[in-house]
């Protein structure tokens, strides 16, 4: 259970980091575009602005866009999926008191009474069980012989 929590928190941190990275890239992309517009406003020769935009800005703008898309379409869904899987496993590993009672009840419903072949006392075993000795006799015989007395 502890392991699941550590894994879950590492995946959640990575996902949160990736989401923040995406936001920062979007903001940088906007600022970069604005800087190009500012060049025009500052009176930088049109030819220089166009050349810079075409040769330098556009390929980078495209790369940033690709990165944002990859994060959005691949990274975040992948990490979210792993988080869901681990969360589910974590929930399954927790036995609540109620679940524990229900599980015991379920087992009890499938138990029958048997008579011990050694001491003749009755004891509970699961339906279809091949056990023929009560726990007390089993323990005693096991200690005496060092072998499983139920195995004939």
């Amino acid at each position, binding site marked *: 259970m502890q392991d699941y929590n550590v894994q879950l928190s*590492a995946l959640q941190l990575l996902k949160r980091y990736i989401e923040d990275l995406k936001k920062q890239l979007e903001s940088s992309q906007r600022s970069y575009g604005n800087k190009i517009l500012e060049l025009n406003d500052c009176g930088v020769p049109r030819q220089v602005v166009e050349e810079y935009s075409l040769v330098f800005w556009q390929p980078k703008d495209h790369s940033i866009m690709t990165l944002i898309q990859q994060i959005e379409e691949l990274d975040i869904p992948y990490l979210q999926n792993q988080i869901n899987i681990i969360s589910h496993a974590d929930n399954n590993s927790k036995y609540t008191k109620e679940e524990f009672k229900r599980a015991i009840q379920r087992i009890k419903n499938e138990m029958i009474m048997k008579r011990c072949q050694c001491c003749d006392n009755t004891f509970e075993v699961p339906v279809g069980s091949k056990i023929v000795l009560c726990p007390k006799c089993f323990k005693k015989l096991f200690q005496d012989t060092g072998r499983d007395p139920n195995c004939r």
Partner: protein
Amino acid sequence: MQDYQRILDGLYGLRNFLQQLQEGLETQLNAYRSHITNMIDAGVAIQVAEKYEEVNFRNNENIIRQIINSILEDDIPYINNQIQIIENALKDVK
């Protein structure tokens, strides 16, 4: 002369922005890598962590690296060249 100064301010602004962007991306890349290491250390199933590192992280890292290299090797030298041209023109006017 004022016109040249405005052009220079615009070019300095773009250069500063790109330098900050490049430094920011380097920092992000390091943080990204340390999150991947944390994920592996946390015991996330090896095939999950490896797949993320080998496919997702590598693809993202390559793009970030390309942007950083392009800023350092293409943009900054080009802008520096334009700055030099305008600074020379400004000197001539003075």
